[in-house]
């Protein structure tokens, strides 16, 4: 367990020193969403009706944008060779790196999301549901993405292939994330959609590290 937190700390330190890279994700998220009021016009009713979907899709794309560096940087400089020699299963290594990735990329998205909800003229009483649905759903995005990142590590232009692998798997997260928002907008109880979203995250928490670990072993051959 020591090694697990050491890796989380290492990746957080690296992200902090490299600075810009984790801010790029959230900047992308903000810019993509803020394009829509310009594109569809300032009609509050239209914006509110598409707002939740836009925010979720932008969150998906922002996560995807940052994922290709998850293992690639360590693969390219030889660190991954050494990381698998640390005293823990590779699945734990994957989990630690994914947790650090979530903290540096998904957490800023969640924090920025109320601001974007304002851009999209969403009613204030659904802001809480938006934050909760992103908090429950983004772990699944990071975990599923980790499998895609591990499968394409070491490939040139692996990022494009990774998008093709990962985006279809993001659809259930998108459906229940937007579903929770839809329920909240109509004044209904969003908890069933949120629970299904949580179930996807838990499912990914169990299976994704194992899949990504197997993919990393293959990449190191």
């Amino acid at each position, binding site marked *: 367990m020591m090694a697990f937190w050491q890796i989380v700390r*290492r990746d957080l330190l690296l992200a902090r020193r490299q600075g810009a890279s984790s801010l790029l994700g959230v900047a992308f998220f903000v810019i993509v969403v803020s394009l829509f009021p310009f594109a569809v016009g300032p009609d509050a009713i239209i914006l509110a009706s598409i707002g939740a979907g836009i925010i979720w899709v932008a969150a998906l794309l922002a996560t995807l944008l940052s994922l290709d560096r998850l293992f690639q940087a360590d693969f390219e*400089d030889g660190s991954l*060779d050494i990381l698998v020699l640390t005293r823990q299963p590779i699945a734990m290594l994957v989990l630690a790196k994914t947790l650090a990735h979530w903290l540096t990329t998904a957490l800023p998205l969640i924090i920025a999301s109320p601001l974007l909800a304002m851009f999209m003229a969403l009613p204030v009483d659904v802001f809480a549901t938006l934050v909760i649905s992103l908090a429950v759903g983004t772990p699944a995005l990071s975990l599923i993405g980790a499998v895609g990142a591990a499968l394409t590590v070491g490939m040139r232009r692996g990022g494009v292939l990774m998008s093709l692998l990962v985006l279809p798997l993001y659809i259930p997260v998108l459906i229940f994330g937007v579903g929770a928002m839809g329920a909240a907008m109509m004044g209904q109880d969003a908890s069933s959609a949120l629970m299904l979203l949580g179930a996807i995250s838990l499912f990914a928490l169990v299976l994704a590290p194992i899949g990504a670990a197997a993919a990393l072993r293959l990449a190191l051959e």
Partner: protein
Amino acid sequence: MVESVQYIAPSAISGATPGIAVAALSCDRGGRRVFSGIEVTLSPGDALVLRGPNGSGKSSLLRVLGGYIRPAEGVLRWNGEDVWDDIGQYQACVHYVGHLDGVKPVLTVRENLTMWSALMGDAMDPDDALKHFGLGNLADLPAKYLSAGQRRRLNLARLGASQRPLWLLDEPSVSLDATSVTQLEELVASHRRTGGIVIVATHNDLQIDHATEIDMGEIDMGTLGDAT
């Protein structure tokens, strides 16, 4: 630096043969047999030097021995047990130095080393290890300012910063100056004195006393002969 600590393999106590043993090991890369029929047994304190021309399979053999590549045939045993029964436990006994240095440019020299020793376990004083390779006065410098040789020395300092019985070194002396090569030889010798095992692939005349040698070039030729 490591003289004071005697490494005792866990199964040495239970009576199994300590050390590494490979039998009839062969490896395929890209559908092509790179080498086959490698047989070698090394006990604590032994060293193995792999020689041979480029592409003769030295690096592949080291990666098989590191547990990165599953051998096509043959068995790799550590302390009498097949390493593929529990590859994680075996890899926790290994230091691997490959062609890439695994140095993070945004961290300082000391941070790079302490990060690795914390992750690898059985950490020793990182400053000692840095001093051994003449990096003591660069400890607080971001690693992006290091030269190729200094980065290599920082990578090699990992060997002294956490204790592991089996060292696999792939061309460790590349881009090192004469002094650093001597320091590396000293480190290897002291590791062997304390019961460590070193396997090194090299073209250069890295001075390693009483080492078993395998010429990978000859093995490759032999296989081709057998196949026809």
